[in-house]
């Protein structure tokens, strides 16, 4: 696989460079950071558990390096706009926080630096960086674009099936559904009634609609947004089957599901009103916290159900990359921070503080799988995911708006799945045409 080769080459280059320059044991963060003591680096953080975890780790980094990390907090919905405006205006951000669907946009605009600029510098790069330790799917999807790695995975999610084990047992089930059809036809009827619902699929008209709802039902059924020629694949039988399944499944969801965002969905499960949800692994902490969840003892976790095409769970998460607009010192300091916060050595601490690292090694540590019961499902999900779960090219911000609009109209039965897919496909292709994918001026990378 091309990507694995690149990774190995990078790791080898970094190792060789480090080895030639000085003994491996000589590298320390403190020494590497000495020239940059006093430098301030600016980074956007989200209001999510993984960022709170990193924030708690910061004093250690700052005291070791003398580098000051200035955090600018934004809710997810504002994070892209704020960063785009900063990069366009040549602002202050030294680190880009990149959702996997923004990577093409950031890379193609030249707002971020490839990591080999830093891994090739033995003075800056920890010999124990070990890029191979990241889950290949995660580093490829979150930090890579068109064969180049720009960012290291920082806040990592996979879609998981969170369920109320007690409700399922009361209904006579000994475990969660293995497949989507089982969820609908077997679990749905028996878990819905008396104000309770078998399942809730967050579908609010924002990224939740396109990522958590629309895409989630495309891939397991063999569908996709685009075919190999970058034409709309939404009218294909497989895509239609997934979209129709979503319509049918709505009978087992709470009314008004198109207004459900993550908070409402997680709360539905946490309050015992909904038996199952498919949500990001990051919500584990909320569901496991007695002050926000009534089902702490009943909470159980499994990988997302399989469809005819396999599991193909939702994939989402963020990498951090060094911003091109930063000056040399800021870039070096930013790299040292990114490398440190995503390191193997810090992965356990990050996990304990509420983050979800993408380091394979941490999940093999004794006791981790037992202490964090979402780990086995998470690790399994990161084997089956698709990097282009949502296309990661620069045009996604425009396309996601179209998906959000027409995906919601489909759910509200304002148009049929075929009509919605037809219009959505035409608009999606118009955006791609204007971008130059069909004229050959842009490679068909997603």
């Amino acid at each position: 696989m091309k990507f694995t080769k690149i990774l190995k080459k990078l790791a080898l280059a970094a190792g060789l460079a480090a080895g030639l320059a000085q003994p491996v044991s000589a590298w320390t963060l403190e020494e590497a950071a000495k020239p940059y003591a006093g430098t301030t680096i600016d980074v956007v953080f989200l209001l999510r558990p993984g960022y709170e975890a990193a924030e708690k780790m910061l004093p250690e980094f700052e005291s070791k390096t003398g580098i000051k990390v200035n955090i600018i907090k934004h809710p997810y919905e504002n994070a892209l706009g704020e960063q785009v405006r900063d990069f366009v205006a040549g602002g202050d951000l030294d680190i880009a926080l990149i959702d996997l669907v923004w990577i093409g946009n950031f890379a193609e605009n030249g707002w971020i630096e490839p990591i080999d600029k830093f891994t090739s510098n033995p003075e800056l790069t920890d010999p124990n960086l070990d890029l191979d330790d990241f889950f290949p799917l995660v580093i490829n999807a979150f930090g890579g674009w068109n064969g180049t790695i720009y960012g290291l995975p920082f806040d990592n999610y996979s879609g998981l099936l969170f369920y109320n084990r007690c409700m399922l047992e009361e209904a006579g089930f000994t475990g969660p559904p293995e497949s989507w059809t089982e969820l609908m036809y077997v679990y749905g009827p028996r878990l819905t009634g008396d104000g309770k619902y078998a399942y809730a699929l967050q579908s609010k008209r924002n990224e939740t609609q396109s990522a958590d709802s629309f895409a989630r039902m495309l891939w397991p059924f063999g569908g996709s947004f685009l075919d190999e020629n970058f034409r709309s694949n939404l009218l294909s039988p497989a895509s239609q089957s997934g979209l129709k399944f979503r319509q049918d499944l709505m009978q087992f969801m709470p009314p008004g599901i198109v207004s459900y965002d993550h908070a409402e969905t997680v709360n539905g499960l946490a309050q015992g009103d909904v038996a199952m949800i498919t949500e990001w692994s990051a919500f584990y902490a909320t569901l496991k916290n007695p002050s926000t969840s009534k089902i702490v003892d009943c909470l159980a976790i499994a990988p997302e159900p399989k469809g005819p095409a396999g599991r193909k769970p939702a994939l989402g998460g963020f990498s951090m990359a060094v911003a091109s607009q930063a000056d040399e010192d800021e870039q070096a300091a930013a790299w040292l921070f990114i490398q440190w916060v995503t390191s193997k050595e810090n992965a356990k601490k990050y996990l304990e503080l509420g983050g979800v690292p993408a380091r394979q090694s941490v999940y093999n540590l004794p006791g981790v799988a037992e202490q964090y019961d979402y780990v086995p499902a998470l690790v399994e999900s990161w084997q089956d995911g698709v990097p282009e779960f949502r296309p990661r090219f620069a045009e996604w911000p425009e396309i996601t708006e179209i998906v959000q609009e027409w995906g919601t109209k489909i759910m509200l039965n304002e148009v049929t799945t075929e009509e919605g897919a037809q219009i959505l496909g035409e608009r999606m292709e118009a955006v791609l045409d204007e971008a130059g994918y069909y004229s050959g001026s842009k490679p068909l990378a997603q």
Partner: protein
Amino acid sequence: MKGKVRRRTIFAFLGPAIVSLAVIGIAPLLFAAYTSLHNYNLTKLRKVKFIGLDNFTFVLTDPVFWDAMQRTFSLLVIVLPLQLLIGLGIALLLHQPGIGLLKTLTRLSLVVPMATTYSVVGLLGQVMFNIKYGVVNQLIGFIGIEPVNWIGDPENAFIAVAFWDVWQWAPFCALVLLAGLTTVPSEIEEAARLETPSWWIVLRHVQLPYLIPGITAILILRTADTLKLFDMVFTMTRGGPGSATEFVSLMIQRIGFRAFDQGLASAQALILLVVTIVLSQLYIRYFYKEVQQ
């Protein structure tokens, strides 16, 4: 020379205001005009090119834009008369003689809704109209009405937004109209009341002429505010479900700041600006003409 002010002094006084206006108001407007004539996407600044009136042509033939415009005007024609009527009712009640303390407290409480930040009003609405935990469904439950899916149903979401806007701005109308009522000379009003027991005749022929300037101001301000209504709806429904509450300003924000197509968004915003100016001129022409007569 008495009465002659030096040119430098004039500039010193007027300059800051003119410069501020130019920087804050005129420059962005000119930049919007510039971007509206270009293919100007923030994430594709290397590909900016002049496209003439293409953005305007696209907007004027785009059914999504006209749908949003229609929703916005539907909201306007529903909420504006309601706000005026409720405001007038409150103003007339407060204009009655007696119960001074109660009237003072009422006047003070009328300020609360409009003093509340728009986005906070929207967030409150999101919580209060929640189908399961919202206080609105609890209240209507006391009179035996089943819980209503306010935010998740397209029609109900529109009603909820309209209701919320009326709640926030009817008090403003009440205060403006109450101020208008206080300008009616008391001897004329008392004489009219001696002539007729009909409150309607007093209102129509004595009080209303004094209210016309206030009503015109309300029409202009509330029309402009409704056409650019954003914060409350954004935090309450985010334009959903579907497009049920995607008013024109939300659509412009979506195009300009989420899809980053600043050129198209600027064209939409300029068209909205023209519509607002035309409406304001119409109000002034017809209502002010009446009051001048």
